């Protein structure tokens, strides 16, 4: 039962174990849902997926498992009339076909469907009426069967399985995390700044002993707060273009940093730093963050780490309008200077082998801009960078 489904999830690299599968089967046994593929979609999601970064993979796996059945996103495309009809007929039993006739035949049905769809489009703003709402639509009748064609009947667009697993709403969360090498984590560990903040939780033995002694042997307890890592880190990743070949190393670094620092913020840029950076590559053109805003938001005590190969045309750094992607009023070097003058500690990690650096003019310029604090993206290089930062 559901073994194939389980294996499909596994194939899409969703971390789930036999335990979850048994849970799912136990839940199905309790009759909490009955023959409803939408509910099954949600239920299996609750049981099998333990982190929203995997929601996207789950949607893909689910779509693959129920392949060709629910994948049609009716509202974004023209209705594939012939296709639908074929699928319809293939899955209808004799009685159902009789029933269909009583509704005026398949053509009539398709027409009604189309009309409803048009209505749906026109009333998009209100958006609470779907084809098949209230169970009166003939299309809803087949919805219970995962093999059937279901044309959403849910009042809420967000919850309709058709919509959700095809639109892959959670695409952005997926960091495609490689389990980073422990070495990087160890190197990053050096960037720890222990501070005693918060409530007094730990017994301060030295003070307790001395003050008990002063107290004539009557116990006088003293507490002190525990130490924890208070360092704050801001990371800027160069993305795309020549960085593609280093993506694996960068991912490892990213994962390691993510788990090591409590206060970690990260942004992306392309080639050189300009007036805007972004947090999300999918929406890099619509949702950008101004550099000014970053300088305003984060205090000078944040440690800044750039990750990039700094390999580009020199004009991309020093000339206005030098960016390969947009027109920049001020040269990239201005923005670099602006940032480095605000933050106290800045370092640049370069995935290029250190030996090759001298072949690129642009690396030299960047190196000067950040005051020679460029290190190779190796465990040793990270160690050196961290030493500089701390």
């Amino acid at each position, binding site marked *: 039962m559901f073994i194939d489904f389980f294996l499909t999830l596994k194939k899409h690299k969703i971390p789930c174990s036999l335990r979850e599968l048994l849970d799912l089967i136990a*839940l199905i046994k309790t009759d909490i849902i009955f023959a409803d593929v939408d509910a099954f979609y949600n239920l299996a999601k*609750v*049981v099998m997926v333990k982190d929203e970064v995997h929601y996207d993979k789950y949607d893909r796996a689910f779509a693959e498992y129920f392949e060709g059945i629910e994948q049609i996103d009716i509202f974004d495309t023209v209705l594939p009339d012939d296709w639908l009809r074929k699928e319809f007929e293939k899955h209808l039993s004799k009685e159902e076909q009789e029933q269909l006739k009583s509704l005026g035949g398949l053509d009539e049905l398709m027409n009604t469907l189309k009309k409803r769809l048009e209505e749906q489009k026109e009333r998009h703003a209100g958006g609470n009426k779907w084809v098949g709402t209230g169970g009166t639509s003939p299309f809803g009748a087949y919805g219970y069967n995962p093999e059937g064609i279901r044309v959403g009947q849910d009042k809420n667009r967000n919850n309709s399985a058709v919509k959700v697993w095809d639109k892959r709403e959670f695409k952005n969360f997926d960091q495609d995390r490689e389990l980073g090498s422990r070495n990087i984590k160890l190197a990053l560990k050096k960037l720890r700044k222990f501070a005693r903040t918060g409530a007094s939780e730990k017994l301060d033995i030295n003070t307790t002993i001395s003050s008990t002694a002063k107290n004539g042997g009557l116990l006088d307890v003293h507490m002190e707060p525990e130490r924890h890592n208070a360092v704050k880190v801001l990371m800027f990743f160069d993305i795309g273009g020549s960085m593609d070949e280093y993506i694996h190393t960068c991912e490892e670094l990213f994962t390691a940093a993510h788990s090591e620092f409590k206060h970690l913020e990260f942004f992306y840029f392309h080639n050189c730093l300009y007036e805007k950076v972004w947090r999300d590559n999918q929406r890099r053109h619509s949702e950008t963050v101004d550099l000014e805003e970053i300088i305003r938001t984060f205090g000078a005590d944040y440690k800044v780490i750039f990750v990039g190969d700094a390999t580009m045309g020199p004009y991309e750094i020093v000339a206005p309008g030098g960016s390969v992607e947009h027109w920049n009023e001020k040269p990239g070097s201005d923005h670099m200077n602006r940032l480095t003058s605000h933050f106290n500690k800045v370092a640049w990690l370069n995935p290029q082998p250190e030996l090759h650096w001298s072949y690129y003019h642009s690396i030299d310029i960047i190196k000067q801009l950040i005051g020679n604090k460029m290190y190779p993206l190796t465990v040793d290089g990270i160690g050196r960078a961290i030493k500089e930062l701390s």
Partner: protein
Amino acid sequence: MFNSTENYIASDDLRLAVNAAIALEKPLLIKGEPGTGKTQLAEELAKSLNCQLIQWHIKSTTKAQQGLYEYDAVSRLRDSQLGDARVNDIGNYIVKGKLWHAFEADQRPILLIDEIDKADIEFPNDLLQELDKMEFFVYETQQVVKAKQRPIIIITSNNEKELPDAFLRRCFFHYIKFPSKTEMEQIIEVHHPNVKQDLLKQTLEVFFELRELKGITKKPSTSELIDWLKLLIADDVSQEVLLDKDSDIIPLFGALLKNEQDVSLLEKLAFMSRRNR
């Protein structure tokens, strides 16, 4: 079975998640943007199932052991110096934690472990056995505390730290998405049943516009919207003021924006739009 209550709207998938967790008696881990009602879920669940709610709010200094019990060695030492008779029974110095209370409740309680990500990284790992077997051992008194019946456990997280796999295995997981406009209307209807339809529409428009504003540091969420509405109604802001796109600034914006940078951004935008006219 859990359903939306008179002041809480639960989406279908959330309801299913809760019911699944109740059915298999597993902890339910809830994540989502701040202000989407994660903590409130436990309160409303307790109300709807009519059972006791035990809340355990996690701070950065909270230790797993504190949820089980604490042995107050210091006061025992002090008592012994003063020659108190209580000293002989170690049980006098065992302070019960929230989990213990939940385990020994007569009627099945709901245990809320709020903001588990605030605690130390090892915190969830220290609770594995307790959440799985619903029992623990008290070393000082050599006694096993076993749950009379497995409590319903709701765990919330704001995603500040990643939770260990072994812990996640033992939970069901649900991510509360930000509600859509229609859901939002339902939520407001529940909190302010008498709000005028057109006023509501207008506020929602302003609200979603504000959420989409670029460069805002803390996007306003559902709970902020509800607070804002409360203020608008209390202040009796007329519809015209709200509808007036020419006015300088959104009335009572302080309820929506919690950050001075955001406020100044809004003021700047308002100033610019005025100048453009």
